[in-house]
């Protein structure tokens, strides 16, 4: 698979639509699809500004959320249409969709996490307790991972609601 000339920074599968999405240090995003046992570039996008810090497909694979270091957010459809965009004017490092794809979480490097609805309206901040007493220390937000409790796997015990 050739297409990037810079270091790869984010790789995400779209399980439902069998696509792979990659981005590099120059801000180039490639959506790959497999055809006859080979990978092809299906879509290419470069905002020519800033770098992609995170991108994630909704659990149903219909939409992709892309965030840039400079605070830009782009949500696109699996067909390749741009659905909406926003400039949040803060550094963004991580993004996560709710399991029902109705809300989207944005994380900043200093540990703030905000909830937006699926069209980009700010809803509320997530209360972060684990950084209390650690203010001022160099501890960038490492991950936001939301598990869908409706996705019953090989559970050996029952979980109460969903754990984020």
């Amino acid at each position, binding site marked *: 698979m050739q297409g990037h000339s810079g270091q790869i920074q984010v790789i995400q599968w779209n399980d439902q639509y069998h696509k792979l999405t990659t981005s590099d240090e120059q801000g180039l995003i490639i959506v790959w699809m497999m055809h006859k046992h080979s990978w092809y570039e299906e879509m290419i996008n470069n905002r020519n500004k800033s770098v992609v810090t995170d991108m994630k497909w909704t659990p149903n694979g219909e939409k992709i959320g892309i965030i840039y270091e400079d605070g830009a957010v782009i949500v696109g459809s699996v067909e390749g249409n741009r659905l909406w965009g926003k400039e949040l004017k803060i550094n963004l490092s991580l993004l996560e969709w709710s399991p029902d794809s109705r809300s989207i979480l944005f994380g900043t490097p200093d540990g703030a996490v905000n909830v937006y609805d699926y069209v980009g309206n700010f809803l509320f901040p997530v209360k972060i307790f684990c950084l209390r007493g650690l203010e001022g220390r160099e501890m960038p937000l490492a991950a936001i991972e939301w598990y869908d409790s409706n996705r019953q796997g*090989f559970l050996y015990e029952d979980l109460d609601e969903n754990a984020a």
Partner: protein
Amino acid sequence: MQLMRKETDDRPILVDTGMAIKSVKWNPNGNVLAVAGSYSDSNVDGKGTVQFYNAYGVHLRSLRVPGTSGIVSSLSWEGFGLRIGLAVDSNILFANIQPEYLWSYFNNTLVFAFKKPERQDMCVVFWDTVINEKHVKYMRRL
């Protein structure tokens, strides 16, 4: 690290891993959380470590990561949750996950149970280890 039941959870479970965390991933079942990171103090043997927790933040296992730096830059679960892949320096390392099966052995027969993704009940396999024959039964509320 905080584990929340929902995005408005006012009482999340707080877990101090003692590590600088690099990557966190739920297993496909959602009952194990893998947390990769490194210890900054040098008296801990092997800097890079993957800690495994259950969904309530109870520590299950630690996995020391070999490699020059030992720093895990990324981790990923295999679709069945029986393996994890770790990106360490220029290597990809694989680790096998052994879940705690319900099992028993009697009369040359090994009985073990697990859950299939598409079913709500438990799949119980009776394996006669002498004639090497397997019988499968499904049971609810095992």
